[in-house]
């Protein structure tokens, strides 16, 4: 028992949750932001891979809540609540929001920093403390969170790996 660890994968504009001893991971974050919400005591966590800052940017079609900072973080919190996690117990760690290229349409050039700002604003609105971040720059990131330890592992191509 407990010897088999599963890595739960989160795609782009996607969210999921995980319990100890499993870990949760998303790869290839560029301008997108990976947001982890976790309950240290219960060792439960969730991750959302946010692509755009605000759901008001969605132009029709069915709304994928996980795509936007505002709806994505809220939807993740609701998923965790359904697992019996109290919102008061949640903390957050975030990574991503790079500026991969220096040009593009005016909207998309600064999408990374805008995503980071929108994520922080939503966390403040939901009163979830942000305890660590690795954001900005111009590198892609792959992140993996372990709910047992509360550590977020951040890997980049040129700057190695760090734990936050």
């Amino acid at each position, binding site marked *: 028992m407990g010897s088999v660890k599963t890595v739960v994968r989160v795609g*782009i504009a996607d969210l999921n949750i995980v319990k100890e001893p499993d870990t949760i991971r998303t790869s290839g974050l560029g301008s997108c932001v990976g947001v982890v919400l976790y309950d240290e005591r219960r060792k439960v966590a969730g991750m959302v891979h946010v692509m755009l800052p605000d759901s008001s940017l969605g132009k029709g079609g069915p709304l994928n809540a996980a795509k936007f900072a505002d709806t994505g973080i809220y939807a993740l919190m609701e998923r965790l609540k359904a697992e019996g996690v109290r919102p008061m117990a949640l903390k957050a760690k975030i990574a991503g929001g790079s500026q991969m290229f220096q040009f593009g349409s005016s909207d998309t050039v600064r999408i990374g920093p805008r995503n980071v700002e929108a994520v922080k604003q939503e966390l403040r609105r939901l009163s979830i403390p942000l305890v660590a971040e690795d954001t900005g720059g111009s590198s892609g990131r792959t992140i993996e969170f372990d709910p047992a330890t509360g550590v977020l592992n951040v890997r980049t*191509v040129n700057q190695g790996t760090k734990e936050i």
Partner: protein
Amino acid sequence: MTTEFTISDMHLDVLKEIGNIGAAHAATSLSELLQRTIDMHVPKVALVSFDDMFELAGGSERVVVGIFLRLEGDLSGSMFFVLPIESANRFIRRLIGDGTFDFSDPSTIREIGVSAMQELGNILSGSYLSALSDFTGLKIYPTVPSLSVDMVGAIVSFGLIEVSHYSDEVIVIDTKIVEVDGNDTSVDGHFFLLPDPPSYVTIFKSLGVM
């Protein structure tokens, strides 16, 4: 989809046909530049999820050399030229005559190699787009190419930002780049054309299929 029509197999087939014409032009230019026989063809035109799009380019975490251009004019969209590090190194070493050049080692990267890589992107996109322009009568202008050595997901997602405002799926015209060396052929990379959803109608109208 928010486009007011359903994308059918017929639409995708037409895009594949244009893709192949563009690819043939681009392959000729590339072969001349590299003095090697380069073949380019379109194995796939499909409406795919963003995660599937990364898979086509080698997987979200795979480290590649990516060249990105935005398209402006009568239609808008993104173009990517994605090469494995080894293939990009081989092309650039040949072009600049420097056997030590290595995209995975920043200390060896010289400006001239980066410029050569961007020029490769210019030539590919230029010949591809002129074929597309001739065929559709649409004026299409690429921006200056921008280069990044990083994970597929990080690079390609940047070109999906515009699409993501409308949809969770994208029409991808995937062009395989193959180097023919004697009897040996190696897949050297992919060239992706991702029109922004508002341009779907423009393209299909110009081709007389709607």
